[in-house]
């Protein structure tokens, strides 16, 4: 179980995440919605410590994640894989190596030294990565540079990287905001599949309430860093949404879409 206790993050005078407390049982698929700037991204980054909290705690199965450092922190990041909106692949590395990055935290001692020095992963790891790439229809491009791939392909590579971490938790930050509908469906189904078949908890930021309803067990809505709704998808109806944001679902989606398109152009 993942537990957030009074989690807060300030950037200067702006409070991005404001005293958020949440308990996510193992194996849950949690959708987080909210307008751009509501603190969804920061919340996910706080969980895997890409952003340090100003106050509050993250606990996983009773372990205080916010107190980890060094090797233990690397271990935690391996256990909670992250999927980014802009994929965050290393463009000049080939697809196979990008996927193998998910195995980095499993290389210790001499093997780690060898990987660092030569970039050469053990054959068993390569085979494992190839099997994963094959699952996502990426075998044909395994030896191409990541930069030659389309956005949808790149996000599938990023998913392979995440799943190869053999995580207990997946943090997905707007994973489908830069994708076409077909790839978006594929990515959401893969997340759902990982959640259902392997019992991996998933925290996913989404801007389409509709997507969150279709795939998630539970929805959290954020507004100005605070959790303003937490419940089953069926409870978040049009009236409730209007009360929270003063917008209809369509307006909310359109606004978020426009905001999500901006970083994609940069």
């Amino acid at each position, binding site marked *: 179980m993942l537990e957030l206790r009074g989690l807060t993050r300030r950037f200067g005078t702006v409070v991005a995440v404001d005293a958020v407390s949440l308990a996510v049982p193992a194996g849950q698929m949690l959708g987080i919605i909210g307008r751009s700037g509501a603190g969804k991204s920061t919340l996910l980054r706080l969980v895997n410590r890409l952003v340090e909290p100003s106050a509050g705690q993250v606990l996983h199965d009773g372990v205080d994640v916010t107190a980890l450092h060094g090797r233990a922190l690397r271990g935690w990041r391996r256990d909670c894989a992250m999927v980014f909106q802009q994929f965050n692949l290393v463009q000049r590395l080939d697809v196979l190596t990008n996927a193998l990055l998910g195995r980095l935290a499993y290389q210790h001692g001499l093997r780690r030294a060898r990987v660092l020095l030569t970039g050469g992963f053990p054959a068993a790891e390569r085979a494992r990565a190839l099997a994963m790439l094959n699952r996502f229809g990426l075998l044909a491009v*395994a030896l191409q540079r990541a930069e030659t791939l389309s956005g949808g392909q790149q996000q599938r590579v990023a998913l392979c990287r995440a799943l190869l971490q053999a995580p207990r938790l997946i943090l997905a930050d707007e994973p489908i905001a830069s994708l076409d509908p077909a790839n978006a469906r594929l990515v959401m189904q893969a997340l759902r599949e990982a959640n259902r078949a392997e019992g991996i908890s998933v925290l996913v930021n989404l801007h389409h309430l509709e997507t969150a309803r279709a795939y998630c067990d539970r929805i959290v809505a954020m507004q100005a860093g605070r959790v303003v709704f937490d419940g089953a998808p069926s409870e978040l109806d049009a009236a409730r949404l209007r009360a929270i944001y003063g917008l209809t679902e369509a307006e909310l989606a359109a606004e978020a879409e426009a905001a999500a398109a901006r970083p994609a152009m940069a």
Partner: protein
Amino acid sequence: MSGTEVAAWRARLPEAFAPPPRRRLWRALVAAAFLAWLGWALAQFGFTPARLWQGLSGLAAILRLMLPPSPGALWGDILRGLAESVAMALLGTVVAALLALPLGFLGARNLVTATLLRFSIRRLFDGFRGIDQLIWALAYVRAVGLGPLAGVLAIATADIAVLAKLYAEAIEAVERRQVEGVAAAGGGWAERLRFGVLPQVLPVMLAQALYFFESNTRAAAILGVVGAGGIGLQIAERIRVRAWDEVAFIILLMIVTVAAIDWLSAWLRQRLIGGRR
């Protein structure tokens, strides 16, 4: 993952496990050739541990003589030399930057469509770049006599070609749409250059000139050694009479000066380029 599965994947996509044998052989050959050359070159230059050790102890002896640094009796000469070096660097860089500006425009592919002209100008830059500042300084000392003038000319001549090449490349990287906007408003080629190209490249050019000023301040110290004015002459004289404590003092002063210029030019760059907000 079991051994048979790994073997199956290896059979299916061998290239994912290791580069093909021919490429591996080729890499090994290149690596061996490089190592052999390196060993041979080191041997040719008498690179033995004994000599390195000897050199180190010699260096240590000099370091001991340097402590404590002392300004000596000729304070005024040192400061004048330092000021002269900075002035040489500044003048040389300014002259080089001004002359490089038109040359850069002439060497830019997107502006000069006469291939032959552009090609010969670019090759001329390349030729000039092959000659080091120190060589120019030696030549100018013979031509215009000892002193800072030779230094300024050496710095300017050596930098014109390099700056012109960098400027040409900056000009080639301008965004065409902005120039097109000026053309569409009825601007001729002069207007396009002045209002379409120049605003885009000027900050880059200034930044590069400032970097050159920094590195020229360091280089100007050496030019004095061959008689082209500046602090180098003072250093050379003191090394000749083994006044290492005074040499150390001058070196410290130079470090402070270069750091100050570094800081100043960083601030200037920020002011000139960071004007977006």
